């Protein structure tokens, strides 16, 4: 399938996971060259109903097996004998009921790294609660942490717990594979959507006995939303997010570019009373409205100021930097036809990453895989 061997060449992963965290976590391994077989029930993983799944579920083969039948279990056990990694995302207890709990699998296939990513950790009082991403956003506290345009909890469009957990899935598998080279044995690696939610609390959740209260207040949740929100500006035809820092030496100041001649320097500005700052910001906002979005972005960047247009996700594909990062890819999907997808965000000069192929249809590789197993 690939021209240049990836870092995980020769590693076989069985992916039983559904949703976002498992499939996307596995994606980062598949595109490093692992041979991933998605093992799904006849009829397919129910999350396939979502169009976006075709991105998260690419770069793997599909085998449909009914693990509730003896025949299906036998095929899966045979497959485990050829595998290095198993990834699953069921609620605690489900794999045991299917006859493939960690202890059983480890006893029969001691080298297999067995990764579980349920919604909540086994042993937690929430472990048997339903595991939809939004519900973990609610129970983990993320909804209340996010300010919005009204009081109360805010539904996060980005499925944040899952978007944390997928990194923990890739990280867990790779760490255990590394350790296996030294110990010879696989092990049970566990993470959860709940842990994924915690990953993104690093800047906001710390109990520090003698912390700098002033700075923390600046960073705290506020209504209307504070800190970085103040750098969002409306233009004549859209929105931009400017930045106070670019790491470069600006030629003209942002205010000079906007045409605000009597602007205070940034330090004076920061020291001004909040009311005065707001008065000046109101003038700034008016000035931005005189510019077209892409024109102010170009003018700022030419003068070494960091700024981005606030685009829709679909607009990303024309972003010159996404193209430069080799992250705009054409993938021919067996069902949808020609698609444009985000590429692999891991850039490895020695072992290049690559999309291995489109999302397979359910059972697309049944014959091929069963043949490999001698069945």
């Amino acid at each position, binding site marked *: 399938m690939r021209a240049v061997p*990836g870092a995980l060449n020769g590693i076989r992963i069985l992916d039983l996971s559904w949703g976002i965290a498992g499939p996307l976590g596995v994606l980062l391994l598949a595109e490093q060259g692992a041979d991933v077989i998605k093992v799904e029930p006849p009829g397919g993983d129910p999350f396939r109903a979502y169009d*976006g799944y*075709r991105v998260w579920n690419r770069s793997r083969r599909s085998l449909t097996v009914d693990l509730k039948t003896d025949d299906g279990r036998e095929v899966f056990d045979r497959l485990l004998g050829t595998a290095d990694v198993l990834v699953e995302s069921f609620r605690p207890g489900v794999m045991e009921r299917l006859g493939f709990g960690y202890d059983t699998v480890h006893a029969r296939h001691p080298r297999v790294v067995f990764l579980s990513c349920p919604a909540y*950790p086994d*042993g937690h009082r929430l472990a048997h609660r339903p595991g939809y991403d*939004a519900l973990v956003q609610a129970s983990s*506290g993320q*909804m*209340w942490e996010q*300010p919005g345009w009204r009081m*109360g909890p*805010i*539904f*996060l*469009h*980005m499925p*944040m717990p899952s978007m944390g957990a997928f*990194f923990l899935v890739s*990280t*867990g598998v*790779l*760490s255990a594979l590394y*350790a296996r*080279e030294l110990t010879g044995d696989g*092990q*049970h*690696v*566990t*993470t959860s959507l709940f*842990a994924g939610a*915690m*990953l993104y*609390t*690093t*800047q*906001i*959740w710390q*109990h*520090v*006995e*003698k912390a700098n209260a002033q700075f923390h207040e600046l960073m705290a*949740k506020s209504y209307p939303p504070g800190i970085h*929100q103040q750098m969002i500006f409306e233009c004549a035809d859209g929105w*931009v*997010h400017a930045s*106070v820092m670019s*790491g*470069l030496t600006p030629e003209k100041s942002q205010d000079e570019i906007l045409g605000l001649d009597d602007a205070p320097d940034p330090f004076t500005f920061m020291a001004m009373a909040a009311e005065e700052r707001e008065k000046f910001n109101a003038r700034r906002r008016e000035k931005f409205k005189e510019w077209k979005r892409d024109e102010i972005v170009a003018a700022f960047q030419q003068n070494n100021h*960091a700024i981005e247009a*606030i685009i*829709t*996700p679909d607009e990303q594909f024309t972003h010159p930097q996404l193209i*430069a*990062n080799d992250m705009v890819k054409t993938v021919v999907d067996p069902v*949808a036809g020609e698609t444009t997808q*985000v590429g692999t*965000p*891991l*850039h490895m000069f*020695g072992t290049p990453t690559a999309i291995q192929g489109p999302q397979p249809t359910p059972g697309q590789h049944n014959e091929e895989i069963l043949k490999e197993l001698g069945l």
Partner: protein
Amino acid sequence: MSGPLSGVRLLDFGQYLAGPFGPMILGDLGAEVIKIEPVTGDMMRMAGKPFFGCQRGKRDLALNIKDPRGRAIALELVATADIVHHNMTAGVATKLGIDYRACKAVKPDIVYCNTWAYGFEGPLARFGGLDPLYQASSGLEHESAAVHEGNTPLYYRFGMCDASNAMLSVVAVLGALFHRQRTGEGQEVWTSLFDGGAIFTSDAHLVGGVPAPRPHLDKDLMGMSATYRLYRTQDDDWICIAAVTDVDFKALCAALGVPEITDEPRFASSASRLEHRRQLETILEPRFRTKTARFWTRTLDEAGVPNEVPVDTQGGELPLFDADNVALGLVAQYQHPIMGDVRQFGELIGFSETPGVINGPPPLVGQDTRAILLELGHDEADIDDLVANGVCYEPDEHYTERFLN
């Protein structure tokens, strides 16, 4: 063996967040992480908590790499390391004499990782940048606020593009380390904040040049559909439901006292419920308003309808002191010599055979300078001279006048 990465040594030349967070996570997995910090301290120290959020468990060598003697020490240390990791902007590592080529010369199989703002090359590669830019460029801020409904874009205050860049670097470094273990070959890898944003909206794609359907928030930021969203309850509290299957929808309507609406064609399938989203919400909203959030969660649990009451964590106080979270290792606790008791998230990945470790608090500037230099073979007199000349720093009696933490 403590942690799957036990025996791995990583040099962290990074500052701020997107650089140091990845090494911290690798440290939690058992790697020995040495923070090489300017003698004037990491610029992020002044931020307090966010600094703590990406520095725990590291050793610390305070070193002026711009001084030739400092650079020589940095390279001596590289020769003992498995991984070099930093988030310097374009050209800085080369100027300092610690780019991939320089590190490879002293350690041929080094794994070298640079986490960029934008990328290794390209029109914006020379720029540094902060997390909000990549919430904009990936479309997160557009979707988070339902800008299509006329709202102002909304910044997520989690700073998760920083963390995403760092986690991408963890995955890339681990892949490279595994490859090195099997072949003896090191390599250079890179990731970026920009790509870290893009992965969050990676389900967005074009089919034949046309955007594929994707769910959006409503104007009030309640949720994605009538059955996957927040509702306000009688006590001005809230409940989040996920009644996305036909079975769950039927159970929901029965529990809410409107079983008859499940027979209506406009609500018969998830597609038709999405199409008539507003009509369905207009029926459900007043029902939720008749009882408290606690009543509804009990009732919906009994009916088997997936739901949660959103938790107000009081800025993290509840989860960091939660008995289950503590028992399961999800909370790290340690004593910092200046800042006192600290709690933050703990081990987010469990390993049955090689459990990870939290190696204590974020380091003081230069707290391990002497120990590390001795390990490298420098003698006490040499170290005293390096400190006296400002090439190195170790904490002295004026520490708290110079540094916050």
